[in-house]
């Protein structure tokens, strides 16, 4: 049992040591294994005996003197503990490390990170080490938890992405919309309130019932309840501005309140400084636990010297304690105030690449309640997909309702895509910066004639367009923050008239416009009855109708309907405006004689604007087509962008780029720069700085001969392949001729395709052979020339 005497490690820097195979230790191990420590399935498949410990530093294999001492202390502690509390589970003190014996070991973070596998203890140790390193007051916890927690089963949890935002504001709204008491009879009001209260109560009841139902579903009696051992991380408040003590589940990385009912009890906690045994009652789970580790009544401590938790130690005190210890080791031993030795674990290192990859193989699938969440490392998928959430209608994950996908680093700035499986509507979301400030796009297909809803970053657009909804009959555009107060423009299209186009005329793709309606916000600089609220251009009816904003306290809006005179009328007659051409209602202004001149000017103005509007609508249509075209192209050729700060990737990218553009150049370049073509020959002659003429000539000849051989070889190989192919073909043809009659049409067809393939192959070989024969002399000459110019040989060959 030598191995067990080797140093063993509990947590990170903390160390607790195993004695030689004491029964106690054995017990701990069996307890732990009996109690179903959950191991993720892929970990089960993993052969732990295959891990390689030989590369670990010697510190991992041996115990120092101090560590030995500590092991003794631990053993003492354990004995006392089991004596005093015979009913309780044995402590998880000094398990063996990966260099020890199976089973029930505690692996060092080094190994866990290397293989990216482990159980809850392993995970907790890694996480806790990282947190301690980052300055948090963190502890590993050995305790009990529910099945879902222990087995990484989140299928009863709502996916965090689906959590609804708090409904608090809604209540605020409700109280704000309270109707005015003056307006309604109190009786009605009371009735209504009563009704509301009733429905609310009913809803609440319903909700509660539902909750209860789900609760029941959740609490399918777990026979192992309370016996499932789990390890997790405890972070105490205080350091790094942590306001409240909380738990972290190492499997999910989610934080939980210490009141969380999933945590059923705590045996002990430890970190690099000490080991604390919980003496509090855990019958109510962890709800009532008090995490004041300095309280010796509640937390029994193993190394009494370092009793106080770190947060209570002032720097001065720490300093004081150090000299004490070094100076008087003996005394300390008597005090049992042995300090924890330095950790033997090498510093934890996570390369940027590993960090980016996150999960092993860069992929992770999590099942939530009626939802499946898949995650990928960035750049793993060629389309930039990093996350996909599938929402199901049922709990068996068969009927998908909605799929949401998140993307990263896409050059087209697509960040999210939502596909509603029921309506077949896809919605793409873009981050700012996309062409024409596209923000979101909903569609069934990218074809132009279907329905499209496009949202835009209106701040970035000159026209303040926020949204455009288009279908076959209508196009509605919504604007925000325009100087002209326009906020909605709705265009109604007629049926596309099939026009006969003369050859050469461009095809008119725009639909005939029947009506354009525009709505405006109130412009406070104008009086209300001069401020147009809505104007409708009935283009086919040659009518324009204006509705103005309501004047203060008025309930009827002023209106003007203008009829455009026919073209002939206008030109033919003097009068350009007649009272019949408009119908006016002016709220609050009893009939006044209509002034024609302003009306005429108004009509002129509106006619001009109508023309512009038509143009604008056509432009909008063109823009839609343009966007669709661009989107199609982007989807067909997805590119990922690389940040210039991501040096590794951007270099790789640059290489790829070069590679695609200048494969050949690079190839030659590499030959020239990367490898010395003369090297093998120079070595043959034992190249030093200088060489004689004879040597130079020899090098040259060797080099040339070598090339000649290679060229000849190459030609020979091609020749041989060519001949072989021809031979085979002939054989096949012969066979075909012989058996032709017995072959089915299918076999015949098969033969024919293979025959033509073979012919093609032969043809290529012939071509290559020819080319090789032609090029060979040129290559030979080129090398000769190059050799002549080579600086090392030049002085000898220059005049040769």
């Amino acid at each position: 049992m030598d191995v067990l005497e080797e140093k063993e490690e509990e947590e990170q820097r903390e160390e607790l040591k195993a004695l030689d195979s004491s029964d106690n230790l054995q017990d701990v191990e069996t307890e732990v294994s009996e109690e179903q420590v959950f191991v993720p399935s892929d970990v089960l498949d993993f052969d732990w005996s295959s891990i390689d410990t030989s590369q670990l530093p010697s510190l991992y294999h041996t115990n120092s003197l101090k560590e030995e001492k500590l092991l003794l202390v631990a053993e003492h502690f354990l004995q006392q503990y089991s004596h005093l509390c015979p009913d309780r589970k044995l402590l998880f003190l000094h398990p063996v490390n990966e260099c020890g014996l199976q089973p029930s070991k505690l692996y060092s973070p080094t190994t866990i990170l290397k293989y990216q596998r482990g159980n809850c203890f392993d995970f907790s140790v890694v996480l806790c080490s990282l947190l301690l390193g980052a300055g948090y007051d963190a502890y590993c916890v050995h305790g009990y938890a529910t099945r879902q927690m222990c087995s990484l089963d989140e299928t009863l949890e709502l996916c965090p992405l689906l959590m609804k935002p708090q409904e608090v504001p809604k209540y605020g709204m409700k109280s704000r919309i309270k109707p005015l008491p003056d307006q309604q009879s109190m009786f009605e009001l009371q009735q209504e309130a009563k009704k509301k209260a009733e429905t609310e109560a009913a809803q609440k009841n319903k909700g509660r019932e539902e909750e209860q139902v789900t609760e029941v579903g959740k609490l399918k009696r777990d026979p192992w309840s309370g016996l499932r051992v789990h390890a997790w991380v405890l972070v105490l408040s205080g350091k790094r501005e942590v306001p409240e003590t909380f738990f972290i589940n190492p499997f999910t990385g989610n934080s939980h309140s210490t009141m969380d009912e999933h945590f059923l009890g705590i045996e002990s906690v430890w970190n690099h400084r000490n080991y604390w045994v919980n003496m509090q009652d855990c019958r109510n789970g962890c709800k009532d636990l008090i995490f004041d580790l300095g309280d010796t009544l509640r937390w029994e401590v193993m190394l009494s010297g370092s009793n106080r938790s770190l947060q209570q130690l002032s720097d001065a005190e720490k300093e004081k304690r150090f000299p004490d210890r070094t100076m008087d080791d003996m005394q300390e031993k008597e005090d049992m105030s042995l300090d924890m030795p330095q950790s033997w674990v090498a510093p934890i290192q996570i390369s940027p690449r590993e960090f980016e990859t996150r999960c092993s193989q860069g992929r992770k699938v999590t099942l939530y309640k009626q939802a499946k969440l898949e995650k990928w490392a960035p750049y793993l998928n060629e389309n930039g997909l990093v996350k996909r959430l599938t929402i199901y209608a049922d709990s068996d994950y068969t009927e998908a309702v909605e799929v949401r996908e998140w993307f990263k680093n896409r050059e087209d700035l697509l960040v999210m895509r939502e596909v509603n499986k029921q309506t077949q509507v896809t919605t793409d979301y873009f981050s700012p910066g996309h062409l024409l400030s596209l923000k979101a796009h909903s569609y069934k297909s990218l074809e132009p004639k279907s329905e499209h809803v496009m949202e835009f970053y209106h701040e970035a657009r000159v026209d303040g367009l926020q949204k455009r909804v288009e279908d076959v009959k209508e196009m509605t555009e919504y604007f925000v923050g325009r100087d002209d107060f326009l906020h909605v423009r709705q265009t109604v299209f007629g049926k596309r008239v099939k026009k006969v186009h003369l050859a050469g005329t461009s095809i008119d793709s725009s639909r005939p416009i029947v009506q354009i309606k525009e709505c405006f916000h109130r412009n406070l600089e104008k009086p209300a009855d001069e401020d147009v609220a809505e104007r409708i251009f009935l283009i086919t009816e040659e009518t324009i109708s204006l509705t103005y904003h309501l004047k203060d306290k008025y309930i009827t809006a002023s209106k003007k309907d203008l009829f455009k005179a026919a073209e002939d009328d206008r030109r033919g007659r003097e009068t350009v405006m007649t009272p019949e051409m408009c119908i006016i209602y002016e709220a609050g202004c009893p009939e006044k004689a209509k002034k024609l001149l302003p009306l005429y000017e108004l009509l002129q103005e509106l006619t001009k604007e109508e023309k512009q509007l038509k143009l604008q609508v056509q432009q909008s249509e063109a823009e839609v087509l343009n966007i669709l075209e661009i989107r199609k192209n982007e989807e067909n050729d997805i590119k990922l962008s690389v940040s210039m700060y991501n040096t590794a990737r951007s270099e790789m990218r640059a290489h790829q780029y070069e590679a695609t553009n200048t494969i050949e150049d690079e190839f030659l370049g590499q030959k020239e720069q990367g490898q010395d073509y003369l090297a093998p020959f120079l070595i043959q002659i034992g190249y030093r700085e200088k060489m004689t003429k004879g040597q130079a000539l020899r090098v040259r000849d060797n080099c040339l001969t070598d090339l000649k051989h290679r060229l000849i070889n190459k030609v020979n190989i091609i020749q041989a392949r060519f001949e072989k192919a021809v031979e085979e073909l002939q054989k096949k043809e012969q066979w075909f001729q012989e058996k032709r009659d017995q072959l089915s049409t299918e076999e015949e067809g098969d033969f024919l395709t293979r025959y033509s393939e073979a012919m093609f192959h032969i043809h290529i070989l012939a071509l290559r052979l020819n080319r090789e024969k032609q090029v060979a002399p040129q290559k030979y000459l080129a090398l000769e020339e190059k050799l002549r110019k080579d600086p090392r040989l030049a002085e000898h060959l220059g005049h040769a």
Partner: protein
Amino acid sequence: MSQLPNSIEPNVIDDEMVQKAIEEEYPEDLRELAKIDGINFKEVTELHLSFRNILQIDNMWQFESLTKLQLDNNIIEKIEALETLVHLVWLDLSFNNIEVIEGLDTLVKLQDLSLYSNRISKMEHMDTLQELQVFSIGKNNLTVLEDVTYLRRFKNLRSLNLSGNPLCHDEHYKLFVVAHLPDLLYLDFKLVNDTTREAADFKYHDRIEELEQEEAEALAQLEEKQAKQKELEYHQTAFVEHLNGSFLFDHMFAEDTETATLADLPEVGELLQAYRKEFVSVCENLFNFGLKEYEKREFEVSNFHGRLQEVLTTNQQEGKKIILDFENESKRRLDEIDNTRNQDLVASKRAEYKEEILQLSEVLMTLEVQLADQMEELITEFAENIAAIVSTFIENVKGFMTQCQDLENHHHEKLLEICITMLEISARNELDEDLPAGVRELLKDKTTIVNALNTSHSIRLRMIYKRESDIRSSTYRWQRSVMEKAFQDEIDRNRDRVKEIVQYIDNLMEELHTMEMLDLLE
């Protein structure tokens, strides 16, 4: 100067000239239309009266909304009759015979003023034209370069033309102007470049600094004055002006020579000091109370208006919805009538429609009646609240004033006591030798002094009473005006709404009628 060789009679602006000028503003094809409409002088915004040999400006009072007026190239000698054109932004008086700048005080919106080529020798009477941006006064008789400092008061002035004035002959003319008008962009229609500006700064640096300091001081004084004025106004609206201090007290003793004389007596002096202190403290309490009460009143009023507005808005929404529903419905109905061939059916449908219009009228009127009821309720409640606040206020004021009167009475008694003692001493001829002669004189006769003291006492009491009644009357006046306004507003509102409904219904009816007529014609 600008007299044309073939000049006819000098003119005065009259309606005919103006009429013609306005007509000429329209393009030819619209002139006819404009004539049909008739021209309303009140709506004209621009007027060109150049080259009309005008000697005297007149008949301009009707052009209320005029923003641009051109009177250049006439023979005008005096700027007059422009006072009513308060919206004027652009005024051109160039090429005239004006000698003095005047009559522009009311044109506070003026941004562009041209007085080019006149006979002006001094820049003056323009202090109110704070919006002035472009000012042309070239080719005049300005001689004193120093006068340019007058233009410093126009903070928005960006372009100035002075060319052709005698003062331009000064060798430092340009630098002087640039230095004194640092915000100027164009001088004599040329851009002021940085080099000039720097040179000017360098040359006149000290002078300008001095000037700026003076101006800053003046400004500070003005601001202080304004702030004080504003505060006083605030106090006045709270009806407690001049009560935050010894104003009332000093006022009470201002013309009281006897007391002043007596104050030379050491005991009287002390007494007066104590009295003054207490009196002022009561006044100050009253003052603070007054301000608090003012806030209360304001809150009540704004609260009332807020609730009023809420009710009105809700009602407006409701009415709007009714109208909107009706209009959508009526559109459908009219289309239906249009598409019906059967004359009888058309007639019956029309009748139905008419019925509906009447119904709408009914609904709207009912709504209005409801609203009026609500408003009345609100106003009544408001009146009650205001009345309560006012009566509390008056009560309390009375309390404070009684305190003042008590103090006065007390003081008077004390004073009498002292005087009588002094009289006795005086009777024994034991008076201090150093007492001023006036006091000695007074203390000679008992009746005189008692009478004098009684008179001034009653005067002071009256003053206190008057202050109280002032407060009371202005409070009541305020109450009355607030309530009257509330009632009047409601009456106006009600009338407007009823008018609106009637008009709307009439309009609908008329529309229907027109359609009928058209049908009959067909």
